[in-house]
């Protein structure tokens, strides 16, 4: 199995199938799966649907680079990143980050850092549709920039 595996796809992903990639591997003591989903509220607005635009080619390149950065920094078995594109409904899955490691600390920190990097570096753009029929491009959040910046320090 590749240490870093990335998919950008319109289709939904299956958590059990992704977890199955790690089946029976006794070198893996800790697995962290993060799933991001379409929420009914964003910045105080009621949301009805979401469309994800991306930059084909660069997206895969950036996600792979983010996975490799995590592998270089933490002692990891593997990193899997899946991100969906196109129209999505409420409660639909958007993103999966699955990190496997011998130890839980590395798996938790790496998964969190990967999400922080993804939020600030991977070329995706969200457009919301509100219940009224209007659309709105989601604004980038300073909070995400700050979250990503903390990984610039050395691990303690």
């Amino acid at each position, binding site marked *: 199995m590749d240490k870093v595996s990335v998919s950008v796809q319109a289709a939904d992903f299956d958590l059990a199938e992704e977890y199955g990639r790690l089946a029976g591997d006794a070198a893996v003591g800790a697995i962290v799966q993060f799933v*991001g989903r379409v929420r009914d509220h964003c910045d105080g607005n009621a949301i009805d649907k979401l469309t*994800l*635009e*991306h*930059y084909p*080619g*660069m997206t895969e*390149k*950036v996600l792979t680079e983010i996975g490799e950065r995590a592998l270089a920094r933490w002692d990891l078995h593997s990193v899997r990143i899946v*991100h969906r594109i196109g129209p999505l409904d409420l409660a639909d899955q*958007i*993103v999966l980050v699955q990190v496997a490691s011998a130890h839980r600390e590395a798996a938790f920190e790496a998964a969190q850092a990967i*999400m922080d990097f*993804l*939020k*600030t*570096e*991977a*070329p*995706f*753009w*969200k*457009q919301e549709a509100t219940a009224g029929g209007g659309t709105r*491009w*989601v*604004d*980038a959040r300073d909070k995400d920039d700050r979250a990503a910046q903390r990984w610039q320090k050395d691990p303690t």
Partner: protein
Amino acid sequence: MQILYFGRLREVFGRSEEFLPAPPAASVAGLLTVLRERGGVWADELAEGRAYRVAVDQEVVAEGAPIKADSEVAIFPPVTGG
């Protein structure tokens, strides 16, 4: 050179891509000057201090970065995936 636009800027500029001749010794700063000279939304959205990113050959770069004749340039808003 090929220029790609994404997200809100794609909508505001009314195009997802265009082709421009690359001037000799072209840089990102030089390209931005050319685009701002179009006025209107171009001058507005690409004004200094506005939040946008420029990627050359699929890598986000600073304004001083060079652009080759066959470079793929992309201009887009701060990303909002995840």
